[in-house]
């Protein structure tokens, strides 16, 4: 681990001012906010992240879950994943979020990991994590070792010729289906970013994973008012039953009136280079009967543009079945 200067900013303004000195807020940032540490400390040990300044934001007052005036929910940046998943309002009104968080990591890690940290969770790509191997995300132009290497767990949606790394988050997939909004305070003021616009596709700039700029501090996430009566399911498929990242996952928020689907939001995990909302799947289902044939059609639509690598063609059918099963489970709920 490289040496760094450790400070604890007194308030958000001081944290933002200090972080604004960084050349980038993306891969290789020289100033980093530190909260739970479950991603950052790990990557600092691997010398994948080498900040010269580390700002401890654990004690900033960003740890509350509160109602919003419009009937939604405001989730502070430093709320721990376990507290969010076990919050009564989340379990009642946004259960897909609770299910997603509890399907990920372990009890210890969920006690440490935070809302903002999970939004910025880094890929588990083995080549990204190994500085001995070429990786365009760490070193633009170095080449992608995964495309010609071990790529069974890599992405099949949103990939480019430069990077096929999977976004590993479960929380973000549920938040995509819930249409969460990410609130950022930066040197130029505050802004609200819909989660669909927050993460970026790798394209030809894989180090750039989000729209965050130097000094940008995620302060909280808001969820819109709950869809009353909706059925919510998070289904995660993986190599072992617990404590493992998704090979494919699906978040579904569905309302059915009579026999027909009146409201549907779908996002996929484990298959995309970012948390993968699927408007294609949603549009095939809106107004249609909630039945197995339509669910399969939605799954076909969601994976239509999938591009497999040498070892992960199986993910296409796995993701389709995952989504169809999640939709059926929601319909039966």
């Amino acid at each position, binding site marked *: 681990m490289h040496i760094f200067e450790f400070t604890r900013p007194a308030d958000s303004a001081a944290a933002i001012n200090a972080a604004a000195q960084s050349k980038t807020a993306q891969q290789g940032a020289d100033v980093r906010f530190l909260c739970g540490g479950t991603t950052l400390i790990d990557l600092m040990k691997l010398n994948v992240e080498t900040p010269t300044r*580390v700002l401890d934001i654990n004690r900033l007052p960003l740890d509350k879950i509160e109602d919003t005036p419009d009937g939604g929910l405001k989730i502070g940046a430093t709320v721990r994943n*376990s507290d969010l998943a076990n919050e009564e309002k989340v379990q009642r009104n946004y259960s897909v979020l609770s299910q997603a968080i509890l399907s990920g990591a372990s009890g210890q890690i969920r006690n*440490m990991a935070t809302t903002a940290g999970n939004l910025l969770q880094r890929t588990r790509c083995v080549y990204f994590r190994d500085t001995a191997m070429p990786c365009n995300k760490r070193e633009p132009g170095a080449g992608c070792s995964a495309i010609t290497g071990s790529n069974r767990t890599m992405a099949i949606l949103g990939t480019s010729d430069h990077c096929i790394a999977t976004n590993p988050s479960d929380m973000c997939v549920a938040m995509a289906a819930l249409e969460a909004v990410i609130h950022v305070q930066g040197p130029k003021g505050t802004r609200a970013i819909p989660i669909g616009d927050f993460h970026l596709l790798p394209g030809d700039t894989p180090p750039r994973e989000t729209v965050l700029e130097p000094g940008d501090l995620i302060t909280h996430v808001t969820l819109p008012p709950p869809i009353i009566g909706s059925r919510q399911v998070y289904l995660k498929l993986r190599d072992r039953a617990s404590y493992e990242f998704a090979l494919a996952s699906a978040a579904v928020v569905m309302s059915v009136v009579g026999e027909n689907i009146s409201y549907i939001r779908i996002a996929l995990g484990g298959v995309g280079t970012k948390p993968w909302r699927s408007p294609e799947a949603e549009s095939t289902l809106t107004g249609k009967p909630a039945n197995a044939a339509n669910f399969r059609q939605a799954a076909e639509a969601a994976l239509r543009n999938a591009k497999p690598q040498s070892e992960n063609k199986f993910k296409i059918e796995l993701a389709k079945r995952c989504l169809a099963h999640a939709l059926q489970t929601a319909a039966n709920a």
Partner: protein
Amino acid sequence: MATIHVNHSASSGVFEAGQAENPADEIAVPITLRINDKEHSLRIDPRTTLLDCIREAVELTGTKKGCDHGQCGACTVHVNGRRVLSCLSLALLHDDEDITTVEGLGTPEAMHPMQAAFLACDAYQCGYCTSGQIMSAVALLSEPCGSDDVAVKELMSGNICRCGAYANIVAAIQQVRKRA
């Protein structure tokens, strides 16, 4: 002749080979940690993980280093009553917090009920993961957890046992929960 420290562990707080004698003194920072109700005033390299600080600086070696990357759970301790992975946290984050290690749970003469249950149920073989298992299991007692074995297995999945003592670990935890 200057002593050369070889960095065996990237997070150990020990300087790289080839540095001057005691170079760590220049970057060491003061911290007071409260571990098992006892204050420890230390000077540490900012990079020191909570795990290395507990083991190397405070010399409480009941907490174990397994993977050192948050994948095995051997380093589990409690911070303010909640279980965390000490290998993925910096010691500097934890001033003014209550840290509990396995040494703070009980003594050989007066074991914590969970320690006694692990002994009674033969819930270990080599013992390397055991302190992490016990720290996780004690914290689980105050977490939302269903009554059946499946729920316990799910919430204990962050603690790996290479010997495969899982069945007896679950039995020990259930024994304590049923008596509570």
